[in-house]
């Protein structure tokens, strides 16, 4: 497994370098940050001063070299807007996003397994159909709309949860509910399919003939075999969440990395965008390794290959 990780790292390093070069030039194609930072009617002198202070007047190749060599010193540059290290800003935002993503995925996976298994026990039954419709609806409802609706119902009308903000556990209820819907819906479908397939497998018949309780047949015998496609889908969703949910973080005022990145892109805060991309790439790389390890743990046939 050590060799495997090393090979993956070498592979990822090459893509990471490509990504970094791409991002460096792409963000600069969007225009000058001075246009966005300075007031609309700022004088040309003020613009020039801003450009000089932030070194944006130097040749592109010099700026790139500074950024690129900084990478190897783990220096990702300084935020134009906040005047502090970009890496620090990104890393400050990460725990909130990871927590949000982690809780969301945990709840989605548990919920999806319960719903999907329930539906798979009697495929095409009434319950199966109800669950299918619900999961389809929840996977396709726009987050933005759901979030505002839930706020007006539960925070403003019923007043059982806070509207927004960050604090005790009650502040996490609405954002996580909104974020959970989509992966829950998608995952429930995947769980259903995988379980239906697993439940027709001969080893399930064997387990039943052994007198294994039905609950164990479902959750111990079939689910473990159905877990690979579930893990694939959950992994995809989780990787998507690493960059946070911009909409949810903005609406609920969660200091996560998604909101940070969008703000940084809109404000052309180059260093923060770059730091965000680099750090996210590393996190996604680690996530993928975790997922690969999980595959191997779940299926011995992969382990022994």
């Amino acid at each position, binding site marked *: 497994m050590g060799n495997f990780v090393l090979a993956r790292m070498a592979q990822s390093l090459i893509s990471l370098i490509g990504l970094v070069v791409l991002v460096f030039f792409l963000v600069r194609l969007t225009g000058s940050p001075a246009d966005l*930072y*300075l007031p609309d*009617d700022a004088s040309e002198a*003020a613009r020039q*001063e801003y450009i000089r202070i932030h070194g944006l007047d130097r040749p592109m190749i010099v700026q790139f070299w500074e950024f690129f060599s900084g990478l190897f010193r783990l220096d990702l540059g300084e935020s134009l807007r906040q005047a502090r290290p970009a890496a620090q800003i990104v890393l400050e935002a990460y725990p909130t996003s990871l927590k949000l993503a982690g809780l969301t995925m945990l709840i989605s996976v548990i919920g999806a397994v319960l719903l999907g298994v329930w539906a798979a026990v009697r495929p095409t039954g009434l319950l199966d159909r109800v669950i299918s419709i619900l999961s389809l609806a929840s996977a396709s409802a726009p987050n933005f709309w759901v979030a505002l609706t839930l706020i007006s119902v539960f925070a*403003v009308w019923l007043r059982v*949860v*806070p509207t927004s903000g960050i604090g005790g556990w009650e502040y996490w209820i609405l954002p996580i509910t909104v974020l959970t819907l989509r992966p829950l819906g998608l995952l429930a479908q995947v769980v259903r399919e995988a379980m239906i397939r697993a439940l027709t497998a001969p080893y399930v018949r064997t387990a039943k003939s052994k007198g294994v309780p039905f609950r*164990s047949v479902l959750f111990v015998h079939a689910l473990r075999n159905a877990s690979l496609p579930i893990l694939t889908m959950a992994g995809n969703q989780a990787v998507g969440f690493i960059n946070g949910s911009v909409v949810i973080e903005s609406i609920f005022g969660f200091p*996560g990395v998604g909101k940070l990145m969008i703000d940084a892109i809109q404000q052309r805060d180059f260093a923060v965008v770059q730091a965000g991309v680099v750090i996210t790439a590393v996190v996604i790389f680690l996530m993928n390794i975790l997922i690969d390890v999980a595959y191997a743990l779940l299926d011995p046939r992969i382990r022994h290959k």
Partner: protein
Amino acid sequence: MSFAERISQMGDRLGTPVLAAAIIAVSMGVAPVAAQPAEGEIVIVQSSEPPNIDPGNFDYSQTGPILRQNVIETLTLLDLSDSSLQPRLATAWEQVDDTTYRYTLREGVTFHDGAPFNADAVVYSVERLFNTDLEQIARNKYWDHMTFTAEAIDEFTVEFSLSQAEPVFDTRLSQVPIVSPNTPFDALTRAPVGTGPYTLAEWQAGVQIVLERNPDYWGDQPEVERATFVFRGEGSVRASMVEVGEADFTFSVPEELATTGMDVAYQNFETIYFILGAWEAPLDDLRVRMAVNLAIDREALLGTILPAETVLGTAIIGPSISGSNPDLVPHPYDPDRVTELLEEARADGVDVDREITVMYINDRFPGSNELVEAMALMLQAAGFNARMELVESGVYREYRDEPRGEDRAVILLSRHDNDKGDAGFSLTRHLCDSNRNPICLPELDEMIQTALATPQGPEREAAWQEVVRFMHEDVQVDAVIGHQVAFARIGPRISYDVSGKNPSTFLIEEVTFN
């Protein structure tokens, strides 16, 4: 036995009903309602978090409400309701000659970090402001045309020497932050230290900024002990927070939600106008520009595209700004006269049928895209060959500023903010040597030069009023629409008067509890 087996057996023992009951109990359980602000505390919800809170950037729209006069004070306080200056850290001031001003400082004031407030502190603040290696809006917004130095005459007297005469120096100086001498000179600070009634207690990045009452404040102790600023991008969420009592105040609620008794409309000192591209035919002809102005049905825009509270304007400065002319009336809607004017111009060989592009940047302000659409339609209806075009800010600037790009006839949607109390801050753009001037008229240039050189007082005001009249009637390079309003929502716990203040100031000291 595997974990899954164990759980599964547990489930067998407990049975589905128990599990279901537990889930329902958790989800229906008594979720505590959000924390309401404590006694003596207020919560202000802003639309976004300031990227930095260096005193040099206290003019920034997100930073201002937090720092300005609450944490960081100025020598004088500009009262926007009548453009007058009130004493703050200075008790008296006088002009010594054209380029020299002398300020007498308040005694017995200390900074939050214990440093004494004195002439040296003012000198340090001015020197830091002019450190051009430090990006500061307070400098490049007010002092990009000149500099000045400060000198301590004695402990509580400062003399300012200007690089050139500036009749509104006092007004400009009211925008200079006075910072503790311990403030880093070469770096932006995240821990601003001033003399104000509140000290910065905490900045939890992405979450909140908390101010606490300064027990050693030189002035009266305000009622509010603690003020927390939080940030929500979504207008309806801000409105909801005040509605349910999680917050006490927000500067901006979407117009369509501003229907409760808690909502107050206020002038935000932003004026909406169109720049008429007088550098190109046919807009280089005064009759054509007049026709554009008369083709706009301004009344019809109110209550439809713009809030009904919007005040139709005659100049890009609001009615409370010194120099605005109360005798003028907005251009009426007169399609017949438009036809006449265009025919006259056509008869003189003006290419009135040339395509005119109404250019705009996406979503400059609420309703801006719709306003451009309405403008294009009204121009077409009046007989112009008009179309609209969405552009990126860089392209927009290529048309607005000299040297200008392609030869095209353009009308640019623009918005101007004047919260500095003097028309000079707004109209210098029309000087012949400005690169933003749509047209160079020697007569206008001279009038503006004269007004700029006139000392503050009735004479200066009259000079600006004349400039404004001339532009409104005889130049018409701006098609002014109106002075914007915004809607604040004020919770029932507090009282606060939003009028007469610009939205980048929130004077916590004026907040009282009901």
